[in-house]
């Protein structure tokens, strides 16, 4: 991307334009199916004050710019109690041309630049990322501890599996499942081992853009030096960061795919064959980073044509990211192909899916908010009639499983790759226990 995707002057113009209509508190109006699941914003659902909504955050940005509010703990506590899930932006952009999520992100960037953000816990994980390449402050040398000895990795492969920090250290079952599926399909793949570093998403989303740039350069240098052609990700957050955010700062020329996209291709090509019935009823949670926020910015170099006073149009029309190009079909197609499996939908899905509650530094700085949001989502999953909740992101996995535990729900959680393993005739739990040595 050669031009700045959200320039300062756009920010300054837009923060004056909020209608305070509250549309951003709800899923798109025409999609509302019940009173219970009409809302779209985890922050609003928990804290209630307008300031926590997408629109409220825009007002705060304006008040900050005008000097009406000064940096304070109160301000940071509102600004950072937001998962940057982007649901407000989908609702607003249904008709409007504002960019609530861009404004939220840029406001955080300003607070960091001005020396106030992010929250102390987020500063701590940023330091950890700089020191040991992961925000969990785990030893770098343990990054590949998840890798069972019987998994075949091909150091010469041009297909790279980027595992990510959360799957490497916290959700090892996902890393193992993804690797086993590729082995089962006979697809040679490489992993970076010592050369894999945090993608930078956790620091980017809290506004520390400078630390993020260092991280992305570090990663891209490694990947380009190895001549990687395709990278696959089982983490929606890493995927989104590579796919959408990296190109805003540095172009690269490899392909990025989430495992659900890649596995769907393998199924289509007949490389993965489902042989075993998995007679369960599942509901699928769309991770924000695989869905609505995973749309690449399209460069626009057109002209703004003033049609008449106050009314301008863009020629050609400026591409508007409104969630339509997220990855929604691939996971559903996979699930629908698993013999015996029944997929039922929750009320809030796809581009207006409800966030698990963990993202953008919330899980570390405001664990109570993360759990409360997760419990809201768990209730919705239960109401769908399913007894299994499935998703495709290790961060969602952790938070949704925490929510299940906290709410005493009977739901069971699986990553989609684990269900694929079952359909391939491999019992994931046994396999993981047997091979990961108590992962």
């Amino acid at each position: 991307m050669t031009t700045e995707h959200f320039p300062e002057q756009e920010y300054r113009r837009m923060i004056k334009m909020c209608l305070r209509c509250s549309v951003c508190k709800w899923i798109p109006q025409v999609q509302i199916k019940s009173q219970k699941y009409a809302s779209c914003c985890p922050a609003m659902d928990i804290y209630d004050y307008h300031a926590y909504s997408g629109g409220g955050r825009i007002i705060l940005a304006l008040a900050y710019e005008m000097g009406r509010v000064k940096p304070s703990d109160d301000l940071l506590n509102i600004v950072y109690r937001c998962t940057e899930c982007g649901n407000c932006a989908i609702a607003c952009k249904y008709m409007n041309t504002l960019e609530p999520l861009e404004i939220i992100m840029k406001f955080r960037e300003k607070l960091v630049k001005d020396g106030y953000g992010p929250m102390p816990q987020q500063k701590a994980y940023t330091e950890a990322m700089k020191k040991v390449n992961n925000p969990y402050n785990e030893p770098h040398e343990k990054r590949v501890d998840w890798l069972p000895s019987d998994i075949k990795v091909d150091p010469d492969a041009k297909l790279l599996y980027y595992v990510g920090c959360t799957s490497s250290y916290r959700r090892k079952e996902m890393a193992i499942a993804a690797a086993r599926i590729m082995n089962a399909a006979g697809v040679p793949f490489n992993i970076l081992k010592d050369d894999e570093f945090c993608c930078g998403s956790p620091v980017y989303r809290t506004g520390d853009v400078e630390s993020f740039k260092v991280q992305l350069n570090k990663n891209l240098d490694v990947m380009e030096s190895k001549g990687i052609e395709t990278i696959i990700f089982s983490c929606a957050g890493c995927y989104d960061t590579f796919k959408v955010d990296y190109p805003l700062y540095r172009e690269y020329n490899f392909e990025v795919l989430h495992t659900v996209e890649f596995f769907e291709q393998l199924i289509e090509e007949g490389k993965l064959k489902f042989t075993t019935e998995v007679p369960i009823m599942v509901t699928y949670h769309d991770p924000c980073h695989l869905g609505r926020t995973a749309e690449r910015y399209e460069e626009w170099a057109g002209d703004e044509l003033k049609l008449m006073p106050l009314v301008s149009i863009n020629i050609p029309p400026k591409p508007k990211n409104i969630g339509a190009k997220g990855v929604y079909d691939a996971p559903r197609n996979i699930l629908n192909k698993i013999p015996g499996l029944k997929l039922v939908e929750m009320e809030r899905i796809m581009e207006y899916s409800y966030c698990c509650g963990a993202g953008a530094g919330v899980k570390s700085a405001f664990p109570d908010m993360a759990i409360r949001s997760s419990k809201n989502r768990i209730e919705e999953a239960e109401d769908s009639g399913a007894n299994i909740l499935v998703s495709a992101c290790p961060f969602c996995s952790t938070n949704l499983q925490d929510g299940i535990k906290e709410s005493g729900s009977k739901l069971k959680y699986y990553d989609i790759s684990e269900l694929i393993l079952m359909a391939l005739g491999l019992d994931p739990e046994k396999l993981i226990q047997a091979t990961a040595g108590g992962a």
Partner: protein
Amino acid sequence: MLEKDILKEFQDVVGPEFIDDGDVMTNVYAYNWCTEFVNYMEGKEPIPFSPVPKAVILPSTTEEVQKIIKLCNKYKIKFKAQSTGLGPWNQPSTDNSIILDLRRMNKIVKIDEKNLYAVVESYVSGAQLQAEAMKYGLTVHMPGAGPMASPLASHTSMAGPGFTSPQTGHSARNVLGVEWVLPDGKIMRLGSLGQKNNPDWFIGDGPGPSLRGIMRGWVGAKSGIGVFTKVGIKLFPYPTDTKFVMTGHAPLYNFEKPDYIRAYVFDCKSWKGLEKIMLRVEEEEVGFIVSHISGLAVMAIFSYSIEGLMDKMALGVLKNPLLVVMGARTKREFDYKQMVMEDILTEYDLENIIDTKYVPEKVFYAECLRANLGYHGFIATGGFQSAKGQADAAALCLRAEKTNIPLKQKYIKKEAIANDFGEGAWMTSYEGGHFFHMESPTMFNQSDLKSVKGMANYMDESNKQDLIKHLGAPFFIEGDKLHDEWGPHMMNYHNWLRKIKAAFDPNGVADSGFYITAKKECENK
């Protein structure tokens, strides 16, 4: 900020997490859309911030509201209640105020599907209530503002026309029992809700003068006469089958159009023709939407972006367009309604452009059914506000529309408002054409000072024109200054309104920036 001891008393009512008197929160609640031109009209700096309230408080029950209001009386602090809070009329007129954000009062108390009414609290949105009512084959009246607004606010406190008004009426006419916390903290229960035995919500009046009139009249008291905590409102049959299936992605969802729904847009070619045809369509009671909108507005309701709007230039040439959307539950009903419309088209030599010259996106029908058309008004400049607001006969509404055109054109020439050829208007009927509503939506740019000032001057001139040309009362006659201007022309109604205000609000604590003060109340500011 509140004094510490006073804050503590409020905290004791709602709990410390539900009151915030910090700078950050109170500044957020000082902002609203269109506040910049309201400020300008009042001779203040044209910024989108009103006076900053002392605190924001979020009660969850009627009892909490009552206690808050009693504290306001004790400490002579004004209060402003808000539901979803859209628009400048939610803003305090003084910094000696607190805002009651009623977000936590969000229950649908009941849906009585047999007697066709629902009881709701403040922060149930129109879309939420409709979604639940649809489960019984019913719908609810929503204002043109859209389904995100609060039916309680619309029914008790503010205006009330909507796109489905031909079928669902006007909010003022749909109010049943009301639970009302008066400005002195006492509770009033209107109509059948006030009965000693078996109180219920089914009617809003009892013996004696109508308290509903005092509560809201035609335009609403905008929090100037207490806080409404629950309201019974009428429900109506949903116009079609309630099966509502959407696939695809925003905004152009693929809506499975119900079998029995049809839209008509035709050019009535002259003002006289429009009046005659609109009355006729209404008389036949076939449409759940019957709206006269300008050519530009026809383009807007079918568009989802400014570029999409420009694609539809061919629709903009319609001179006196009428939009009719009809729905039916059975084939027989549908055939009958279509036949009636065919007769009207033939009789007046009209051409329906829908599905002949223009095929709407499927989601358009979903938006008609879910009351989402008004939001398209923001498409061109991001900001709009309406002048006029007459509620009268079709002839008067059209006269108001016509006389507004040259005035609007004057401001278009000044490049203060967007060019809709001066024709931007929305006119709908209520209750089968017994009376009509007309307003003149005007697009401006709220971030452009010239546009803000121009818009304010235009609104002012438009109001004056209504007075001089005997066009009835516009709906934004609010606040002391305008009431004092209009009262002498209308039976000195403002004196009566002041007496009501004084009787109901002896300490003048219900913020009346958008209502009327009892005059001496101003001294509390």
